[in-house]
């Protein structure tokens, strides 16, 4: 049973990855190109200024992976590995939640709800605090702390979500079904807002970075995640519902 759900999750993840890759290729890559063009401009200006001062030019770094490969195969592999892995984790989460999640949901509804939870807890909320950044934003010196904070925020958000949901049954007994849902949401929001206020903010966007490119880049990142989670939830739910109905028939 777990194996079936796990494999289904990974297969659905691959389909979700294809959709999300298509979106990123069309809408995300142009923003990366614009950000890299901005970075090149900055570098040129810096090099010209240093040359004028008679300082030695830093040696040009050799390109390990060409731009077309980064934007094509590289992006494809990254998105597919990411989506298949999240699909697998989704299958495992579903296998755990089935029959345990409060509310007696049928498979379709449970998968939809889990996907919504995954999108909000693993991407949306952590990215409100530490948003996705295009190339040329970000100081290489701070990559360690930025990575730690980002993953820390994801961990806090996920833990808060699981904890809040685990309180649902005791809330329903006291306040009724609807209010229990509100109480779960309130618990989650209180914890992540507190974490967001306590954790340090990071802003390494260069002053002249075009605001429109930054906005479009972040919308591209958000859209890709939305597509991936929606496809995961709907496809996984549809397939699992069908399998359960067939088994009962």
């Amino acid at each position, binding site marked *: 049973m777990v194996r079936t759900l796990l494999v289904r999750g990974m297969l659905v993840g691959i389909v979700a990855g294809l959709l999300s890759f298509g979106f990123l290729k069309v809408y995300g890559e142009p923003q990366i190109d614009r950000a890299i063009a901005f970075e090149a401009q900055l570098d040129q200006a810096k090099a010209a200024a240093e040359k004028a001062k008679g300082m030695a030019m830093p040696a040009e770094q050799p390109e390990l992976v060409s731009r077309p490969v980064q934007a094509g195969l590289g992006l494809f592999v*990254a998105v597919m590995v990411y989506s298949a892995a999240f699909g697998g984790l989704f299958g495992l989460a579903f296998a755990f939640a089935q029959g345990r999640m409060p509310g007696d949901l049928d498979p379709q509804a449970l998968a939809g709800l889990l996907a919504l939870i995954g999108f909000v807890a693993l991407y949306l909320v952590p990215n409100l605090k530490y948003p996705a950044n295009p190339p040329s934003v970000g100081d290489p010196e701070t990559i360690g702390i930025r990575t730690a904070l980002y993953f820390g925020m994801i961990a806090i958000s996920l833990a808060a979500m699981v904890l809040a949901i685990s309180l649902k049954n005791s809330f329903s007994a006291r306040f009724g079904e609807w209010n229990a849902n509100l109480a779960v949401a309130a618990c989650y929001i209180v914890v992540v807002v507190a974490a967001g206020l306590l954790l340090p903010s990071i802003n390494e966007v260069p002053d002249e970075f075009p605001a429109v490119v930054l906005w479009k880049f972040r919308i591209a990142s958000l859209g890709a995640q939305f597509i991936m989670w929606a496809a995961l939830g709907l496809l996984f739910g549809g397939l699992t519902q069908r399998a359960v109905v067939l088994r009962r028939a």
Partner: protein
Amino acid sequence: MTSTTYAPTLPVPAIPLREWLPWAIFAGLIFLLAIYFVGAEEGATSLISGMYVHEFVHDGRHLLGFPCH
């Protein structure tokens, strides 16, 4: 026109933890490792030397929301 009634009654029994746990641990670790390679390898930390993995997944890492550079 016939009306269809949505009957949300397909409760599926929980899978025993004993059965779920081994899958969750082994497969979960592999998935997390895969996400780590896409999201953080040769950035904040490095398991293999060089910058090839970082450069290869570069665009995906940015667009998937991970800190990069």
